């Protein structure tokens, strides 16, 4: 397989996902934590020593708890949803390129776009509030958890975009009901929650002193359930796209 083909698929997916309005929305989302951090910096004095707690709380509740799933919905559901809806997928399917390859690169680009929004969402507030108790390991650990979260969320939302026309609505509903509400309270739901996996990974890297989550899910759960979510999400999308037929509307 030619590198040029892969590069073209990556280029097209990135152009598609970062089309004007979506790029602006993503940029806006990535800057929200910095605005909150600036407000914190103006209201709370440097000497209070609460910067560490603030950054951890901001990461847990705002970045991992809300921005990550919302950004993943934004990029994951549109990676395929738009193409199938308006028929532009045909322009890729009518090329001598394996369909699974189209899915793979769209998925990778959606993950990278989501992760790219998370970088300023973590680093900018850290730069605003950083002090001796907040070394660079703190934002890097948070970003590691966010990276895994991006990969898992995007796998699910990619499949949602390929299988349903109302992927954005269903995705948002999932984020609000499962991720923002149930996974915080129900132990069973925690083991299928990308949010809980992100928190647990960051916590593990930061050490147990960080108060990201009271009872982090185990590494074994992250490995087994995470792999399952990834395989099912990407696998369902490949299945859908391989079976895609340009059906005439009768």
């Amino acid at each position, binding site marked *: 397989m030619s590198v040029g083909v892969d590069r073209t698929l990556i280029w097209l997916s990135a152009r598609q996902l970062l089309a004007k309005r979506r790029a602006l929305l993503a940029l806006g989302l990535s800057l929200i934590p910095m605005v909150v951090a600036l407000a914190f910096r103006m209201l709370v004095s440097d000497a209070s020593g609460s910067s560490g707690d603030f950054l951890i709380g901001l990461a847990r509740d705002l970045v991992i708890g809300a921005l990550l799933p919302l950004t993943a919905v934004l990029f994951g559901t549109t990676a395929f949803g738009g193409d199938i809806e308006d028929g*532009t997928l*045909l322009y890729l399917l009518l090329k001598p390129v394996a369909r699974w390859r189209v899915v793979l690169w769209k998925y990778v680009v959606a993950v990278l776009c989501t992760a790219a929004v998370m970088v300023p969402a973590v680093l900018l507030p850290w730069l605003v509030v950083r002090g001796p108790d907040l070394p660079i390991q703190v934002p890097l650990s948070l970003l590691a958890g966010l990276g895994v979260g991006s990969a898992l969320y995007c796998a699910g939302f990619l499949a949602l975009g390929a299988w349903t026309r109302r992927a954005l609505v269903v995705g948002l509903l999932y984020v609000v009901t499962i991720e923002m509400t149930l996974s915080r309270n129900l132990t069973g739901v925690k083991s299928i929650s990308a949010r809980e996996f992100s928190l647990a990974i960051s916590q593990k890297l930061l050490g147990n002193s960080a108060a990201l989550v009271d009872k982090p899910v185990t590494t074994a759960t992250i490995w087994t359930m995470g792999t399952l979510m990834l395989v099912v999400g990407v696998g369902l999308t490949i299945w859908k796209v391989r079976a895609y037929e340009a059906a005439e509307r009768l």
Partner: protein
Amino acid sequence: MTAIELRRASRWYGNVVAVNDVSCTLGPGITGLLGPNGAGKSTVLHMMAGLLQPSAGEVLIDDVPAADDASIYRRLTLVPERESTYGFLTGREFVRMSARLQRLPDADDAATRVIRLVELEGAQDRKIGTYSKGMRQRIKVAAALVHEPDVVLLDEPFNGMDPRQRIHMMGVLREEAARGRVIVISSHILEELNDLADNVLVMIAGRLAASGHYRAIRRLMTDRPHTFMIRSSDDRRLAATLLSDASVIGVELSANGGASSGGIVVRTSERSTLTHHLPRAARDAGIRLLEIRPTDESLESVFSYLVDR
């Protein structure tokens, strides 16, 4: 020599039969696929393009099934009917993307060549989202031809093109056909295929109703019986007068017929003879014509005549 072959190909969606038992073989040159909307033309093209599996029968490109092998797209292309394209790309980016996905060694040169071919050099750096419908059709054709495929399938390619663009596109397709390519064009307008398609396949309700040279199909369609609804100041007398005309096959008074009623329905084998004769006959008989209306000129009725023939 490249050939497309349909062997008793059918395709259905649930209970709806879109294409029913179609067999034909298409070789180099231009073939027109004619039929009203919903006749199954797009389904046939999509089966030829390997995008749809036939529910029964076979669709072969050079004796190999069209579906299930992406490598076929090195030799085959389809210009879909749907207008949607990547509106955020420029015309040139869209064509170059096609060239790269076809692994052409010099995608830029190939893109320049086909953009010139469809006369879009002036607009190539504009976003496709700003293109008119006709321009979008042309850039889609350019992207489809960039790798010089042996088989070119075009679904209603002239939609949205103005007459000049149409003539130019016909010239482009003729040149491609002269190079030995198999070109299939679907259309619901017979005149679009005039002087373009050597061979015309007429599809109606999923079936292949007729096939042959454009002129033969044209003759079939114009030499059929025509029906007119005529209202006059004295329908009964007009009916009697018209029956003396050899071109009139039959006259029928409408249900509530009186001396000057709801009109008469006239069937003629020669449309032009009747339209010349009618005013003169009415004037000689002192009858005033109030309304003359053809009742069967819709495309569907023309096609259904071909089916019933």
